[in-house]
């Protein structure tokens, strides 16, 4: 038996779900704030379209410096309280794909500090993570850092999560990854998370909207000078015999670049436009 499922996007402000999954329709809030529109395809008048596939790409253009630390660079990360070193650990630089973005000698993901009910910092305390990225062979690596202080408001007990994301492109010592000045209510630190990635560089998310409704959110990576394409999520979504869209329907691609570098984002839509008057015949294949 061959079972067939189709996905139909309607015009209500819902995200479509595959039949038989039993989930209720829910309103989808975009994961990120998309700042740039990459492009759009609109089904022309007099046609309907069978969308056979979507593809999103993101890549750097004319990057002068390689992203990979060819000589296995070592970055030292310090946890500081009011400018005083309190913990020191190392993050080795090596190629990472999207599934393994986190590597460190101190793997916070697996070895939590486990501060039990936390450590309390008072009003005015400054806690931060800093790092130094040395140059190698005259080239400075470009490293994407993501760090979080997880804790609670000491006074109210409410969750207080401080997150910072930065790209460090200089070898100047003591670059700040995340910094937090404790407010009057105090801050009870429960955990620290930090991750660094290099090569196969995270480019941010791309969104695909159909008729204005968010249908896909795709984390993007660059090629990172690799020849093994399989390690990088390029966001190709196939639709088998096609996703039917009536004339006037639109497919839009949005992105949120996270770094100020020359780069390209692309959205490709593959499909067949079918003249409505003709019906099942007269398909014209296109890449839009």
């Amino acid at each position, binding site marked *: 038996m061959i079972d067939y499922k189709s996905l139909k996007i309607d015009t209500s402000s819902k995200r479509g779900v595959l039949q038989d999954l039993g989930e209720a329709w829910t309103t989808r809030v975009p994961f990120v704030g998309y700042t740039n529109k990459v492009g759009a395809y609109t089904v022309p008048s007099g046609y309907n379209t069978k969308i056979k596939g979507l593809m999103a790409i993101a890549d750097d253009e004319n990057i002068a410096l390689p992203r990979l630390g060819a000589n*296995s*660079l*070592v970055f030292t990360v310090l*946890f500081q*309280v009011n400018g*005083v*070193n*309190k*913990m*020191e*650990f*190392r993050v*080795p630089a*090596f190629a990472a794909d999207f599934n393994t973005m986190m*590597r*460190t*000698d*101190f*793997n916070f993901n*697996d*070895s*939590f*500090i*486990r*501060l*039990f*009910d936390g*450590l*309390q*910092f*008072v009003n005015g305390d400054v806690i931060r993570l800093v790092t130094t990225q040395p140059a190698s062979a005259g080239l400075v690596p470009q490293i994407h850092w993501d760090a979080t202080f997880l804790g609670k408001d000491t006074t109210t007990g409410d969750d207080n999560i401080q997150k910072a994301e930065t790209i460090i492109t200089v070898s100047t010592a003591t670059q700040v990854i995340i910094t937090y000045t404790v407010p009057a209510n105090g801050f009870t*630190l429960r955990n620290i998370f930090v991750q660094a990635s290099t090569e196969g560089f995270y480019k941010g998310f791309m969104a695909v909207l159909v008729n204005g409704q968010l249908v896909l959110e795709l984390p993007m990576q660059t090629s990172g000078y690799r020849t093994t394409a399989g390690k990088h999520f390029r966001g190709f979504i196939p639709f088998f015999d096609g996703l039917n869209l009536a004339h006037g329907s639109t497919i839009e691609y949005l992105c949120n670049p996270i770094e100020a570098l020359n780069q390209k984002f692309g959205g490709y839509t593959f499909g067949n436009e079918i003249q409505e008057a003709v019906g099942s015949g007269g398909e014209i294949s296109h890449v839009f």
Partner: protein
Amino acid sequence: MAQTINFGAITTTATTARQDILTTTPGATLKLKTIVMSGFLTTWSATEANLGTVFLQVGGVDKMEFRIQNTDNDTLAGIVVIPLGDGLLFSGAEAILIEVTPAAVTSMRWTATLFFDTV
């Protein structure tokens, strides 16, 4: 309650026994919640190697002894985290000493952090 964090770090280039990383005498109003120790080669290497033996003393008596290793990128090591729940109490006159006997003269970096909270 307020935090007190003690930190110590040394770089070793000799196999001299029992080199001090961190020593502190916590007051009776402090409880030790977590101990973090790490050791790594100053020049990064993906070759597995025994880096050395770390000792934890309280009041001049060995309480813990373990080895830290250097491993390749896919297995994470060189770090020891000892969570102590809601904390250990001290008399106020007991010195905590963390020291290391490096296994080789290769330059290594050793760090130790003690996270205290106020009783």
